[in-house]
C-alpha cells in the first residue's frame, strides 16, 4: 500500500477547510514531491468550489485556478500531487462521481467527512491505473508528521 505523507499543519488545514465551508464541500490541491512509495506533501492550496448549484454534494475546481496553482507550485519546486475535498454529513469514502470525475492518474485524492460541521475521518485514495479505461481508487495510508513546513499557501 502506498502512503501519503503530510505535515500536521497541512493535515489540520485541509480538515479546517472542510469545517469552514460546511454544509458545502471544500476543495483544494496538495503540493509535494514524489517518493518511491507515495507523495510527500509540503503544502496545500485552497480552491473555490465552482459547483454553486449543488455545493453540498459536488465540487469542481476551475481549470484557470488550477493553472495558477500549478504555476506557483512549480516556482516552489513542487508538483500537484493530488487534491482534497470534503463530504458534508457523508462518509470519507470515494463515490462513483469521484471516480468518474478523477483524471489525475497516480495522484492522491483525500476526502474528509464533516459531520454536523466538525471534521471526522480523513482518508486518502490513490488514483491507480494507466488509462481512463482501467483507472481505480486504491486506499492508501496517511502519515501525519509533526514538522511544520509551508502550510496552506492561499
Amino acid at each position, binding site marked *: 500500500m502506498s502512503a501519503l505523507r503530510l505535515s500536521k499543519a497541512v493535515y489540520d488545514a485541509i480538515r479546517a477547510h472542510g469545517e469552514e465551508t460546511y454544509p458545502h*464541500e471544500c*476543495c483544494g490541491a496538495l503540493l509535494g514531491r514524489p517518493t518511491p512509495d507515495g507523495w510527500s506533501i509540503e503544502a496545500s492550496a485552497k480552491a473555490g468550489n465552482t*459547483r454553486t448549484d*449543488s455545493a453540498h*454534494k*459536488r*465540487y*469542481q*475546481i476551475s*481549470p*484557470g485556478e*488550477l*493553472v*495558477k496553482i*500549478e*504555476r506557483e507550485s*512549480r516556482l516552489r519546486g513542487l*508538483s*500537484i*500531487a493530488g*487534491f482534497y*475535498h470534503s*463530504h*458534508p454529513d*457523508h*462518509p470519507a469514502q*470515494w*463515490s462513483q*462521481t*469521484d471516480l468518474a*470525475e*478523477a*483524471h*489525475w*492518474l*497516480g*495522484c492522491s*485524492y483525500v476526502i474528509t467527512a464533516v459531520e454536523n460541521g466538525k471534521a471526522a475521518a480523513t482518508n486518502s485514495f490513490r488514483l491507480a491505473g494507466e*488509462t*481512463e479505461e482501467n483507472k481505480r481508487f486504491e486506499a492508501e495510508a496517511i502519515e501525519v508528521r509533526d514538522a511544520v513546513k509551508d502550510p496552506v499557501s492561499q
Partner: protein
Amino acid sequence: MTIFIPTPLRAYTAGKDAVEVNAATIAGSLDELTTTFPELRKHLFTSEGRVRAFVNIYLNDEDVRYLSAKEATEVSHADTLSIIPSIAGGC
C-alpha cells in the same frame, strides 16, 4: 513556446514537467509534442483526434476553447501552454 506537463502525464515525457516546442500555432505545438512523445497522444486526444473532454488547454491564462481561432491561434516563443486535466467530484 513552453508546454507545461501535468503530473499524471510526465510518465510519458520521460519525467519532464516542461517541454519546449517551436510550432507556429497551438495545434502545431500539440502535434510536435505528441510526435516527440507518441504515448501522450491517447491521453490527450480521442480516437477521432479531438482533445478529450476532460483535458483543458490554456494558452497563458486563456482557455483555448474560448479563443476566437481556438487551436489555430498563433503562438510566440514567450507563450506558455498548460495542459490541465479537470478536477471534480462529490458524494
